[in-house]
């Protein structure tokens, strides 16, 4: 499954990183605590979170994640989007809750990686 398919099937808004939409998704992780993500998320994972500040981009880039899905319309500042764009990181936005997105991802076959 590539990021673009998830964008299309879940109707997500592409906020940044449209050049990297063909990246393969290896699995998923959901949390709002950055240290948890640092410890558990794997390269190529899609990360579902309510957080949308510059450090989210730093964490996602360091971990080489495939995409970040920001839920519940959490406001994404222009500098956050610009930073993601510069790093070629896909940032997606949705009004849905984290739980709803994770359920949908699971239905599409995106699994947790332990």
């Amino acid at each position, binding site marked *: 499954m590539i990021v*673009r398919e998830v964008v299309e099937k879940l109707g997500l808004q592409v906020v940044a990183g*449209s*050049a990297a939409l063909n990246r393969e998704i290896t699995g998923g992780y959901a949390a*709002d*605590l*950055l*240290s*948890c993500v*640092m*410890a558990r998320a794997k*390269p190529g994972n899609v990360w579902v*979170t309510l*957080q949308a*500040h*510059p*450090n*989210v981009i*730093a*964490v996602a*880039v*360091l*971990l080489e994640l495939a995409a970040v899905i920001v839920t519940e319309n959490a406001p994404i500042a222009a*500098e956050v989007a610009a930073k993601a764009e510069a790093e070629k990181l896909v940032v997606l936005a949705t009004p849905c809750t984290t739980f709803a997105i994770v359920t949908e991802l699971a239905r599409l076959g995106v699994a947790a990686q332990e």
Partner: protein
Amino acid sequence: MSSHEITHVQKLVFRVGQVMTRRVITITLTNTLLELKEVMRQRRISGVPVVNDAGVLVGIISIEDLLRAFEQGALNATVAERMSTTLITVRDTDLVDVAAQKFQQTGVGRMPVLDAQDRLVGMLTKGDITRGLLAEVQAETQDEEIARFRASHIFRDVESDHTSLTLRYTIPARDFTHGGEASSKIKRTLMRLGTDPQIVRRAAIATYEAEMNLIIHADHGGQITAEIDASQVTLIVQDDGPGIRDLKRALEEIGYTTTPPEIKQLGFGGGMGLKNIRKCADQMKIESQVGRGTRLEISLRLHTD
């Protein structure tokens, strides 16, 4: 070209003049279609711009026009009679994405390129754009490959009893905007040195946690020093206060944190930082004195064997 590909082209910053074919083969109004056929056959092209005596672009004629004339037995007609005068052109200074959109909107296979004085300076096909795009991507990866090749040889090329590379970073207090940049740079350096990706990942996680600790907790920020030699990377993270009040709890108790609530809202302060660092490091030493500061030293072996 699909709309997805157009989106990719939009990311490119180069202009039509950089990807077009410069040697333009033209034909004049008075040439016959038989002569046109020879030009197309010899040059292996399927569309030719038509110029008048003054060299100004007046039309374009394609292999489809030629085939139609052939079906009608009109190969002795002139180019002027059979050419298309509806000209879809681009400027050499146009961005490539403008040209890509024009291809998609009009369905034409090639476009004459004009300069600011309306002179014909080149021809552009979708293939030219694709080739330009591929060349750009290749140049980017090639630069990184060269950087990696050079860096990976450093420990072999430099002769000394012990060669090491020292990277120093100053981390300002509360600078959340740039949080993670030092970690990114250390990570990139390790990758260029040809380090195993799993080890790079552990080093990046440990450095990031230490970097964020300086940003969140240290009164005046601090310094990160990474010393890399052929066998290991040693990270020294230092600050001058406030110091960790209960080091034992900070190291062992899940959820123990002194992060202020307003920073917790950003997703920090889960009481996991030092534990994450310890999990990633092969060796870890930490000394801290309240009012004096904290010194963390960790090392990771660069080879798994």
